[in-house]
Structure formats: C-alpha cells, structure tokens
C-alpha cells in the first residue's frame, strides 16, 4: 500500500545525509578519538549536572572528567550564581576539594592551607610574607565558562566560548519552556563503565530498531504494536548538531499486575500521567501531538541525552575515557513522592528502567571487540537509524574540520 519512498521517509526528509554505509574507523582509532577530545569535548558546552544539586549558597559538587583530563569544582556563590572552576589550588597544583560534594563556606587546600571563597577568590595564604612580589588577587581559582539552560548546568573549557549556551542549544532552547524540570527530582542514579566507544554507546539510545529484539522480554510489548511491528519512529527532527525523535507507544499495551498497581498511585515511565488527551500535554513534549506517543528522545550534542515523558524524564551522559571505554551516567526524575504509595509506584518505573538498560548495555562490548578486530570496515544503516547517521556526520564534520566554528 505505502510507496517505497514513504516507507523510507527520513532519508527523503534529510537527503543531505545520504544512504551510504558509515565507517567503523571513528569508533576504533585512538588518533580519531584524540581529535574528538580536542575539537569537540574541549570546545563545546557540556552538561555536568542540575542546579537543584547545589540549591543553597555554599553547596558544591566535584566532577572528575577523564574526557577533559580535569577535575571541576561547581559551586553556588553567596550571590546565588553557579560557578565552575578547575579544582586546582593555584599554589602548587593540589586537588582542592577532595570530597564529591557538600556545603561549605570556602575551600582550604590540604597541602599548605591556601583558602578560597565561594567565588574562587584566594582569601588566605598562611605565612604570606614569605612569598615574593605576591598579590593574592592574581591567584584566584581558574574559572570555567558556566551557563544554565532549563536548570541544566553547562560548562565550556574555552575561556571565552565562541557561542553562548543559547546559541549552542539553538532551536531547542525555547522548546521546553514550562516543562516542570525544577519540580521533579532524581529517584535513580545509575552509572557504569563500559568497554565501548562513546558514539556506539549513544547510538543504541537513538534508534528503536533494536527494541523488538534486545527488549523482547521487557519493553518490546509497549514499543511495538500491530500497526507498527518494528517500532518505527513517529517523527524525527534533525538540527545542526542536536537531534530529536518521538517514540511510539502501543495503544494496546497490556500492563502487568505491578505496573497497574504503580499506575494507580502516580505516573509511570510507560504510561506517563495516563491521559490519552494529547492536545494539551506538558509543554515541550510530543510536538506532533501523536495519540500513540511514548516519549521524546532529545540528543544535545555531543554527549547528553534528555528523554522526556509525560510526568517523568531521564538523562544520560556519556563521558569517553578512551577510544573504547566510556563512563555512562543516568538519572530518572519524577515528582517528589507525596506519600508512601507514590514512592512504591515509582519503584516500578525505576526497576523496569534499570533492567531494560541492562539489556541495552549487554551487546556493547561485543560490538566494540568485533569492530576492533578489523573484520569489517562499514556498517549499513536503515532509515530507522537516521539519528545514528546524523550523529556520525556531525562528529565527523567537526573532527575533519568541515564545520565553520572550529576554523580559526
């Protein structure tokens, strides 16, 4: 019934991406990885957390980032402003804050006791008179460019970034105005170090072609249906560097006993708030107003995925450690539970998400090992893997210096 071209609709929508197989080399070449580090990660806005993690003046967290070969100190000042610094004492380079976070009035180096305030100013140097031609003001903490979008804290290692965070987020900047990010709280915090290239890792969360197979025991039932047996994407939106897609929901989904229980007491990741009225969903989600909508995938270049459902959202951040090794961090955000019943219901979403993620992760190290073996050089992509194709091209254009912003 449907024409061939209609069935392969994304390649028609984005013909500039082509249809050729994509190369394996970017996932196995240490040299390519070093160029990604220098040309992408060290020059791009990167999400490192949310403002609620440091809600009071003096609250801070430390983020050790192997990708950037640095440790960052992120702190809320007395003026309420969130700032990031290299977590390095300016005396002889010791790591300043050693715990992973907390609340403080300032930072005292464990080596010689140099003391900094919350704005990074050096305020105390023991036995200061013994230094030569010394001005404390010249030895404040080294700041890192920091901006906030919808409560997400972004940093950029370039001292004076070429584009603001607003320019960087671009078309997506205003899309989520009104989505209740600030009201939701993480009920889950998972992480894993996986022996796989960061791009391969992210790719699995940018297509649903794998759902009927890898998730056959868990969420395939909800992600596929009679009218959509392969879980084709409802819509795709490819931007200059970022990308989004809407994921299908099976209207004939049969909840299990545990899911029905959970759903009675609050939203679940599968059924959202349970409304089938998609004319007025939460702001920013389901842009096509599909009645068979599960959730939206939003990939913020280069390494941040923001998946939004109706009443919950989850974030994933991918930090490459080496060409074939990646730290993955995931958080699921839901309403702070008002009573024990809501908390018990949320445990359903949490456990199902964890078990489904462990299915996603199960294949990654096999893929990397086979890529490393050199037995194949290219991988064909289906039209349903258009976001994977876009992800590859955006990275490759930057690594091969085809995009203007890195032409100096």
């Amino acid at each position, binding site marked *: 019934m449907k024409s061939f071209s209609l069935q392969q609709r994304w390649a028609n929508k984005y013909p500039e991406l082509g249809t050729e197989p994509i190369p394996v080399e970017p996932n196995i070449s240490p040299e390519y990885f070093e160029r990604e580090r220098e040309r992408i990660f060290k020059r791009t806005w990167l999400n490192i957390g949310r403002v609620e993690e440091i809600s009071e003046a003096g609250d801070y967290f430390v983020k050790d980032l192997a990708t950037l070969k640095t440790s960052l100190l992120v702190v809320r000042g007395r003026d309420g402003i969130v700032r990031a610094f290299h977590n390095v004492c300016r005396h002889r380079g010791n790591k300043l804050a050693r715990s992973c976070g907390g609340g403080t009035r300032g930072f005292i180096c464990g080596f010689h006791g140099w003391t900094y305030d919350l704005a990074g100013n050096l305020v105390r140097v023991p036995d200061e008179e013994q230094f030569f031609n010394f001005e404390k003001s010249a030895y404040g903490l080294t700041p890192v460019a920091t901006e906030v979008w919808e409560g997400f804290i972004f940093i950029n290692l370039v001292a004076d970034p070429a584009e603001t965070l607003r320019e960087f987020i671009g078309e997506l900047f205003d899309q989520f105005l009104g989505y209740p990010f600030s009201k939701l709280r993480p009920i889950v915090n*998972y992480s894993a170090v996986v022996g796989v290239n960061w791009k391969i890792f992210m790719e699995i969360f940018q297509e649903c072609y794998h759902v009927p197979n890898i998730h056959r025991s868990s969420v395939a039932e909800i992600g596929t249906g009679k009218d959509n047996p392969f879980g084709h994407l409802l819509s795709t939106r490819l931007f200059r560097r970022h990308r989004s897609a809407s994921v299908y929901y099976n209207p004939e989904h049969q909840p299990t006993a545990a899911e029905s229980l959970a759903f009675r007491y609050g939203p679940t990741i599968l059924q959202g708030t349970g409304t089938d009225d998609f004319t007025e969903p939460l702001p920013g989600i389901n842009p096509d107003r599909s009645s068979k909508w599960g959730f939206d995938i939003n990939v913020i270049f280069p390494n941040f995925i923001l998946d939004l459902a109706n009443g919950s959202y989850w974030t994933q951040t991918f930090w490459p450690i080496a060409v074939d090794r990646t730290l993955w961090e995931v958080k699921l955000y839901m309403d702070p539970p008002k009573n024990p019943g809501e908390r*018990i219901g949320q445990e359903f979403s949490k456990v199902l998400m*964890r078990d489904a993620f462990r299915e996603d992760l199960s294949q990654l190290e096999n893929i990397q090992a086979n890529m490393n073996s050199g037995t194949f050089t290219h991988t064909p992509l289906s039209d349903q893997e258009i976001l994977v194709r876009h992800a590859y091209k955006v990275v490759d254009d930057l690594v091969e210096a085809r995009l203007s912003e890195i032409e100096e």
Partner: protein
Amino acid sequence: MASPLPQQFQELAAFIDKWSLATERERNACRRASTMEEIQQFYDAMLPRMNGLIEYLNQYPLDALPEDAERLFYLALSFMEVSPAVELFREPDESGAFDAARFVIVEPAIV
C-alpha cells in the same frame, strides 16, 4: 516485643528477614541471589495485599513511618523489585543482561 508488622499484615512477617531491605542495591542483590521459587512465593504472597498495604501506609507521611509500617514499606519496594523477574523474565535475573556487578546503583539518589 512489639509485633514486627501492623496487625492486619502479620501473615507477611515470614518474609521480613529476607525481603525487608532499605536500599535498592540490597533488594536487587537479594533478588539475584534467590531462586525463582523463593521469588514466586514472595510475589504471590504480596500481590493480593498490595492495594490494602498501600492504603494503610498512606495514612503516614513518607518520612515518618512507624517501625512496623516501615518494614511493610520495604517489603512493598521488594515486591516491585522482583516483579520483572516474575512478570517478564521468568528467571531471577535476565540471562545475558549486562553484568549486574558492573552496573552501579548510586545511593542515595534521593529517597
């Protein structure tokens, strides 16, 4: 000694030692270390009581559960923990899934 569970839920007391666990890490480890028979027995005992149990717990604020109610609350969280084993996988932990020991549950995320 005070009874371990609220009076109307006494028949679940036999499950306290094994399943009334405060953290997700403990609950998941317990599920993975259990036989399918143990999991099924716990699930079957809990399922018909879950609605009443939640109604009972909801008379208390989440952060002020009396001790006996808190034990019941943790049993309910364990019910959710084992539910995929019974309802989806039909084994305690899915064969072939990513190594649970390498999948880090960072706690507390928040209660």
